[in-house]
C-alpha cells in the first residue's frame, strides 16, 4: 500500500493517542507490580498495536521507533530483562518521545528520531546475560531496528504467493471448496524438529481485509520469525478470473509453526486482523504426537454451544516457559459459530463470524457497549438544542393554564416528556468517568517523587464516577497543581517520615464520589498538614485576619486560598512561582464548583473539590434589578430573605444587615451595576457564602425559578467575571447569569480600594 489516505491517518492518530495512554498506564503498572503477566501483556500489546498501526499507515519511522519499545517489553516478557526503575524510565521517556512524534506527524512536521533515546533503548536490548529460557530464532535480542510488518513489501508479496501456492497445490486442490475456514489439515509431519512444540494455525481472513490495507504477507512473515514455518493454502477457493473481485480476500491458510514461544506471541501476531478474521490456534506438543494438549474439542456430531468453556485448564503444555494463561480477551469471548469445524475451535474463537456464515445463526454475542466517536462541538450543539427544547416545552405548558381543555394538551404532555428525555440523554452523553482525569496522575506523581527524592504511593478510588467532559478537562491543571503541592510541601522525606513514626512512603489518595447532586473529588495526603502558626502569622502580617486570631479559627485554613498567599519563603521549581491556590480556587469556581481544605497537623491535608454534574444546564433563580433580569445559579444561593427599606448598618465601613442576629455584609447589585432609578422600598436578599462567610446580595425582585441552558458570552466578554454566561429565557430574550462569588469578590475589592 502506498501513501495511506487522510482518513486512515486521522484514525491512526486518534488510536495512537489512546494507545499511548494505555502504554503509559501499563508502564506505570509494570513498575508497581512487576511480574503481573496480564498487565505486561496489555502493555506489550499497546506498543505492538502502535507499531503495527503506524506501519500500516506508512509512518515507517514511528513504527521503527516503537519497535524498539516493543522489543524491550518483549525481553521483559520473556524474562531476559529484569524490570527496574531505570528500565521503566527509559521506556517512559521513549513513550513520551513517541507521543511527541505522533503529534508532530499529525501536524505534518515529523521530528527526527532521538539518538540518545535510541541508544538507551538499544542498550536495554543488548544484555550480555543471554541464553535465557526460550531463544527462538527471532529472539528480539538483536533486532532493535527491524520492522516486522514489512510495509513497503513491494517485492516480497509479489514473489512469495506463487511459491507457496505451487508448493501446496496438488494436495489442497483436492479438498472441499466450502467457504468455511475449515481447511484441510495438510500433514506437515515428518519435517518437524524433535523436542520443539508446534502450533497449528488456521487463518481465514475476512473478505474485506484487503480493503483495510492489511498486508497479510507481513502477518505470515511475523509468524516465520517465531520459528520454522510451513504454510498451506487452498487456491481452489479463488473463483475464476471473471468472477473474481480483486479487492476481496478469498484465501485461507493453514500454518504450522515450530516454536516454544507462549501462545500469546501468536495472538499478538494476529492482533490487527483478529477483528475480521477467523483464526484458530492449537498447540501441539511433540512429546505426545498428534494429541492436542491445550484445547481439545473432540469433533462432535452436533456443534455444542458450550464449546467456549475448555481452556488451558486441560493440560498445560509441558514445554511452556510460562504457565499458559487465558489471553485476557481484547474482545469478549464469543461462542464459535457452529459452522466452524469442531476440531478447529481453539480457545480463541472467531471474534466475529465472517459474513458468509451469518446464516448459521450464531448465538447472540455477549453485550458490549458500542462506542462511536462524536465531534465535541456537535455534541455541545446537541446539548444546547435539547435544553432549548425543554425550555420551549416549559413555555407551552404555560399555555395550558389559558384553557386546559384544548385538544392539544395531550400532545403537549408528550412533547414535554420527550423533550426532557432528550435533554437528559444528551446531557448524559457529555459525561465521562473521572478516570480520564485520574489516569494521568500516576505518571505525574512518579516523576515528582523522583525529583524530590520522596517515596509516594498513589491510591485512586472511585474513578468510575462520571462528570461533565468540560469539567474533567478543565480540572486537570488545578489537580496537578494540588498534587505538586502535596509532593513538594506536604509529604515529608522518607527519613522525616520514619522519624515521625509514619510509613516510609507517603501516600496520596485521589477519591471521587457523589455528594448529593454534586460530585466531590478529594486529594488527600498523609503528610505534615497545614502549618497553621505560620499561616496565621502571614495572615496577620498581610491584614487578612485581625491581630490575635487564634490558630484554631476556622477562617485560618481558607487563608491559603487568598491571592498571593504563600507560607513558603523559597520558591521551588515546581510549586510556587506565583501561581497560588487562589488560581486553583478560581478555576474551580469557574466551573461553578467549590474548593475546601481539611487538615490535621502531622496527619495530612485534604483538598476537596465539589462540582456540579454538568455545566450545560443549571437550575436558577430569575431575579430583576434595575429593570434587567438576571439568572442566579440556585446552587450559589443558600437562602432568600426579604429586605425592608431600612438603611443598612455599617460594620467597619461596610454595609451590613442583621439576619437572625447575625451581621451579614451586604452587596447592592443596583450599585454595583450602576442601575438607574430609585431603589424599591422592599428588596430581596440572596444569601450566599464567600470564603466561608455569609454574604447577602440585594436584588430588586424575585421572579421565580428557571432552568437555564448556559451559553458562553463572546470572547471579548469572557473576562467579565461577574457573569458566568448567558441564557435565553422562554420569551426569547437573553438573560445574563450572575456569578455571586465573583460579584462579592468584586464588591470587596471595590470597597478595599475605597478605604
Amino acid at each position: 500500500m502506498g501513501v495511506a489516505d487522510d482518513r486512515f491517518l486521522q484514525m491512526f492518530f486518534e488510536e495512537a493517542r489512546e494507545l499511548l495512554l494505555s502504554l503509559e498506564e501499563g508502564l506505570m503498572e509494570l513498575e508497581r507490580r512487576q511480574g503481573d503477566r496480564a498487565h505486561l501483556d496489555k502493555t506489550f500489546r499497546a506498543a505492538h498495536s502502535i507499531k503495527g498501526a503506524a506501519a500500516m499507515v506508512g509512518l515507517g519511522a514511528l513504527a521503527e521507533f516503537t519497535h524498539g519499545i516493543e522489543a524491550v517489553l518483549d525481553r521483559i516478557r520473556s524474562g531476559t530483562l529484569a524490570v527496574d526503575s531505570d528500565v521503566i524510565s527509559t521506556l517512559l521517556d521513549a513513550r513520551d518521545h513517541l507521543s511527541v512524534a505522533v503529534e508532530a506527524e499529525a501536524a505534518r512536521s515529523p521530528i527526527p528520531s532521538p539518538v540518545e533515546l535510541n541508544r538507551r533503548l538499544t542498550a536495554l536490548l543488548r544484555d550480555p546475560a543471554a541464553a535465557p529460557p526460550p531463544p527462538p530464532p527471532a529472539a528480539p535480542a538483536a533486532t532493535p531496528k527491524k520492522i516486522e510488518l514489512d510495509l513497503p513489501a513491494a517485492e516480497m508479496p509479489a514473489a512469495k504467493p506463487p511459491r507457496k501456492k505451487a508448493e501446496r497445490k496438488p494436495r489442497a486442490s483436492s479438498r472441499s471448496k466450502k467457504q468455511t475456514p475449515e481447511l484441510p489439515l495438510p500433514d506437515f509431519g515428518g519435517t518437524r524438529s524433535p523436542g520443539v512444540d508446534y502450533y497449528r494455525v488456521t487463518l481465514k481472513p475476512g473478505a474485506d481485509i484487503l480493503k483495510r490495507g492489511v498486508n497479510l504477507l507481513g502477518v505470515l512473515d511475523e509468524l516465520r520469525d517465531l520459528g520454522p514455518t510451513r504454510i498451506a493454502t487452498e487456491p481452489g477457493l479463488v473463483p475464476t478470473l471473471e468472477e473474481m473481485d480483486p479487492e476481496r480476500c478469498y484465501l485461507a491458510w493453514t500454518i504450522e509453526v515450530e516454536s516454544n514461544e507462549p501462545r500469546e506471541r501468536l495472538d499478538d501476531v494476529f492482533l490487527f486482523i483478529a477483528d475480521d478474521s477467523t483464526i484458530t490456534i492449537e498447540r501441539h506438543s511433540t512429546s505426545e504426537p498428534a494429541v492436542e494438549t491445550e484445547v481439545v474439542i473432540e469433533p462432535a456430531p452436533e456443534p455444542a454451544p458450550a464449546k467456549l468453556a475448555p481452556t488451558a485448564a486441560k493440560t498445560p503444555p509441558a514445554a511452556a516457559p510460562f504457565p499458559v494463561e487465558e489471553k485476557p480477551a481484547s474482545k469478549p469471548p464469543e461462542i464459535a459459530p457452529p459452522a466452524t469445524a469442531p476440531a478447529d475451535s481453539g480457545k480463541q474463537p472467531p471474534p466475529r463470524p465472517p459474513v458468509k456464515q451469518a446464516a448459521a445463526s450464531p448465538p447472540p454475542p455477549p453485550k458490549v457497549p458500542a462506542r462511536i466517536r462524536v465531534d465535541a462541538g456537535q455534541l455541545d450543539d446537541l446539548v444546547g438544542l435539547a435544553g432549548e427544547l425543554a425550555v420551549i416545552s416549559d413555555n407551552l405548558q404555560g399555555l395550558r393554564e389559558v384553557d386546559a381543555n384544548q385538544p392539544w394538551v395531550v400532545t403537549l404532555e408528550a412533547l414535554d416528556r420527550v423533550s426532557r428525555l432528550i435533554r437528559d440523554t444528551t446531557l448524559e452523553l457529555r459525561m465521562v468517568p473521572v478516570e480520564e482525569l485520574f489516569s494521568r496522575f500516576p505518571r505525574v506523581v512518579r516523576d515528582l517523587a523522583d525529583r524530590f527524592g520522596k517515596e509516594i504511593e498513589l491510591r485512586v478510588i472511585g474513578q468510575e464516577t462520571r462528570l461533565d467532559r468540560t469539567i474533567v478537562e478543565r480540572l486537570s491543571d488545578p489537580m496537578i497543581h494540588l498534587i505538586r503541592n502535596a509532593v513538594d510541601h506536604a509529604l515529608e522525606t522518607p527519613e522525616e517520615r520514619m522519624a515521625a513514626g509514619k510509613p516510609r512512603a507517603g501516600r496520596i489518595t485521589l477519591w471521587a464520589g457523589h455528594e448529593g447532586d454534586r460530585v466531590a473529588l478529594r486529594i488527600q495526603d498523609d503528610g505534615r498538614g497545614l502549618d497553621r502558626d505560620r499561616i496565621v502569622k502571614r495572615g496577620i502580617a498581610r491584614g487578612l485576619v485581625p491581630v490575635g486570631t487564634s490558630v484554631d479559627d476556622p477562617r485560618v485554613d481558607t487563608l491559603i486560598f487568598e491571592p498571593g498567599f504563600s507560607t513558603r519563603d523559597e520558591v521551588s521549581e515546581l510549586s510556587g512561582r506565583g501561581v497560588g491556590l487562589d488560581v486553583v480556587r478560581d478555576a474551580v469556581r469557574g466551573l461553578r464548583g467549590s474548593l475546601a481544605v481539611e487538615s490535621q497537623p502531622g496527619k495530612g491535608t485534604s483538598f476537596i473539590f465539589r462540582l456540579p454534574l454538568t455545566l450545560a444546564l443549571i437550575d436558577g433563580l430569575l431575579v430583576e434589578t434595575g429593570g434587567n433580569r438576571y439568572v442566579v445559579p440556585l446552587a450559589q444561593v443558600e437562602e432568600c430573605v426579604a429586605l425592608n427599606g431600612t438603611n443598612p448598618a455599617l460594620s467597619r465601613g461596610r454595609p451590613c444587615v442583621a439576619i437572625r442576629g447575625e451581621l451579614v455584609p451586604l452587596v447592592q447589585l443596583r450599585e454595583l451595576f450602576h442601575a438607574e432609578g430609585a431603589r424599591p422600598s422592599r428588596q430581596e436578599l440572596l444569601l450566599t457564602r464567600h470564603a466561608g462567610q455569609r454574604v447577602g446580595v440585594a436584588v430588586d425582585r424575585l421572579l421565580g425559578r428557571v432552568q437555564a441552558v448556559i451559553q458562553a458570552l463572546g470572547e471579548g466578554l469572557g473576562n467579565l467575571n461577574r457573569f458566568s454566561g448567558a441564557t435565553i429565557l422562554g420569551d426569547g430574550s437573553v438573560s445574563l447569569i450572575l456569578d455571586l462569588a465573583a460579584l462579592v469578590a468584586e464588591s470587596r475589592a471595590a470597597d478595599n480600594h475605597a478605604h
Partner: protein
Amino acid sequence: MIELPGETEHEIERTQSYVIFQLGGEGYALEVSRVQEVIDLGHLTQVPGGPRWLKGVINLRGHVVPVWDLRIPFDLAVDAKLGRSPCVLMVETQLANDIRVNGLLVDRVSDVLDFNPDDVQPAPPLGLGKASPFVRGLIRHQERFLLVLDVDRVFTALGSSLTAGGI
C-alpha cells in the same frame, strides 16, 4: 430583513459586492461575504460593566450574540434622528483562529453595490479620525466617499484593548 444578493455569475473575479451602511453620518462599505444577514434591532439585553461600545447581547435564533456600537470607538456623533430604526449587521469575524458572529449596530443599511477592485483607493493615513486604522480603502460613489471597513482589525484592536481594560 433585507435579502442580500449573491455574487453574479459573470465578472465574478472582478467585482465585489459591498453592503453600504450609514454610521454617524458617514457612508461605510463592507464586503457582502462578511455579512451574514441584517436584522432589525429587537430586544437588547444590557451587560452592566461591559465595555462602553458593547450595546448589549441579543438572541440570534438561539445563540447569544453581542452587539457593538462602532460610533463610540470611532468617536462619531450618535445621531438620534437617523437612528430611529437602527439595524444590526451580523458580521463574521476572525479573532485568533476562531470565527465568530458579532453584531454591528448601524444607523441604516442603504444599498448593496458592486465595485471593481480598481474602484477601491488606498485610504489616506490621516483625516478619518479615530476610524483611520480600521478603514482599508475608499470608494468614490455619487460625489461621496464610502469607507471600506476592515472588521477583523476592528475586533482585534478593540478586543485587545478590551482585555486590557480600555474603552
